[in-house]
């Protein structure tokens, strides 16, 4: 129990005294998760919209596949990405291994099913007459898309928040693809895993609190979006 208290104290120390290692990990975390979230939202929202709106044969099967993809273990994704970007892999020449970009690729794969599944649900549960109303006002396909997305923004916000939570907290991909290299690809979560393995439980707790602080800052700014909704 005492290490929890010690961890809380330490969290303040790390943040306030500007521990360089911690800040390096914070920076890496923020960079890599912004990158992966941007990619997955950009790809996932349109795909989720199609899955939620359009009625095509095989739609439910695709839905089941996407839902299954929600259970992709991070280490598994890490291994797959590693296989491709390792020096001996087909994409080895791009030098993505042990870089933040490499991690972002894996994290985008991790976040994508969440964004797609939750966007599809948000779009599905839009008010029933919305589409008819927009069409009746002469909206084009693109405009129907944009307005529906805007009307579904609460659901999309949750999709984004959930995916961000997933990406921020994953360890397997960052370890496998990023290599947890100190000063370079060490993120907060890989640092937590490392410290815990070292038996430095208090530091683990402290770093976890640092991550929560980041998440809180993100969610606090998003909650203004919610207010305007």
């Amino acid at each position, binding site marked *: 129990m005492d290490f929890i208290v010690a961890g809380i104290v330490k969290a303040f120390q790390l943040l306030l005294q500007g521990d360089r290692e911690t800040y390096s990990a914070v920076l890496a975390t923020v960079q890599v998760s912004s990158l992966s979230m941007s990619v997955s939202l950009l790809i996932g929202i349109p795909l989720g919209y199609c899955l939620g709106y359009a009625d095509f044969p095989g739609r439910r099967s695709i839905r089941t596949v996407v839902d299954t993809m929600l259970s992709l273990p991070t280490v598994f994704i890490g291994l797959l990405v590693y296989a491709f970007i390792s020096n001996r892999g087909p994409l080895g020449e791009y030098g993505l291994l042990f870089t933040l970009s490499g991690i972002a690729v894996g994290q985008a794969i991790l976040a994508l099913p969440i964004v797609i599944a939750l966007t599809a649900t948000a779009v599905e549960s839009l*008010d029933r*007459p*919305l589409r*008819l*109303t927009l*069409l*009746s*006002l*002469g*909206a*084009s*396909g693109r*405009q129907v898309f944009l*307005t529906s997305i805007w*009307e579904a923004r609460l659901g999309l916000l949750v999709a984004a928040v959930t995916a961000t939570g997933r990406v921020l907290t994953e360890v397997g991909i960052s370890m496998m693809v990023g290599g947890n290299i100190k000063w370079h690809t060490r993120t907060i979560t890989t640092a937590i895993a490392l410290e815990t393995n070292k038996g430095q439980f208090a530091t683990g707790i402290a770093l976890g609190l640092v991550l929560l602080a980041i998440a809180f800052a993100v969610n606090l700014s998003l909650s203004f979006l919610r207010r305007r*909704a």
Partner: protein
Amino acid sequence: MDTILRMREVRYTYNGRPILDIGELDIARASITGLAGPNGSGKTTLLKLLSGVEKPASGSVSFMAANTTRSSENTVRQRLCLLPQEPFLLRRRVYDNIAYGLRIRGGRGDLAGYIHEALELVGLDSSFAGRRWNELSGGEAQRVCLAARLVLRPDCLMLDEPTASVDMESARCIRRAVLLARREWGTTLIIASHHRSWLNDICDRIIYLYNGRILACSFDNILTGPWETVDRSTVGCRLSDGQMVYACKPVHTAGSAIVSFSDLDASGPVQERNIKSLQGMINSITLDNKQDVPQAVVSCGDQRFMIKMNGDAQGAKQFWPGQTVTLHYSPEEITWLEK
């Protein structure tokens, strides 16, 4: 005729159930067309097809010779505009709801002038612009939806029950707005409504739908049965006051029939072959604003029949509400409706 909308051999089904079957329908530019018919007769479906929001299973719908359902023809779709039956507002302020259509058409900057004008057309004062979508009563929401269409000044405006939950004063307001749209902007209007007198009042022409088909005649006097066999060639429908309406046996045992009455008679039944009569009481006598022919509603038990009175307004002088009259019809002239 300068046709703005043309429908040919259109069929529409829901899950295989045929809903609409229109052989030929032409709408003239700057005309006001009414759409009447009982619940489920296909009015809403027809409007959706005409406005290009839905696609027919087969057949063609074209707007000034351009096909409305090809989504690439987005500019065509923007010149048509539908007010859906269910009033629905986006989760924004009234202002933004009305501005939405303008904005997707590229409208930028200060649209307040247009928006207040549109609100005024439907009888709402401009303080409503600042309200949120959920701060309106049913009729107010309905009128905001209409305002959001009027503000677009489309070439062709289709209204699905615009007066459904609207007060009498606003119904008149909407009537004025519709007439203004036609006069000022040359808008073509197609209006579905159960508000028959209101519809009669403003339409150049009324299309009667029944079971997804266009009827050749008006159908105010529909008898839905049940029909009992009277003799080999005649069936009859008993009214709640005990009187019987006779009809020639139909080829197939259909459910409903339209009775047309030749005239109203203050004297008793006539004794003529092939002419039957019914006794009833005049309920009301109405003169349309446009038409000079007065109409009477006569009740026989629960059933009410509408009869155009022969002659002009003066001809109505001899009748008054409360009077007992005789209606004449010929059992052979009853029109059977296909189920």
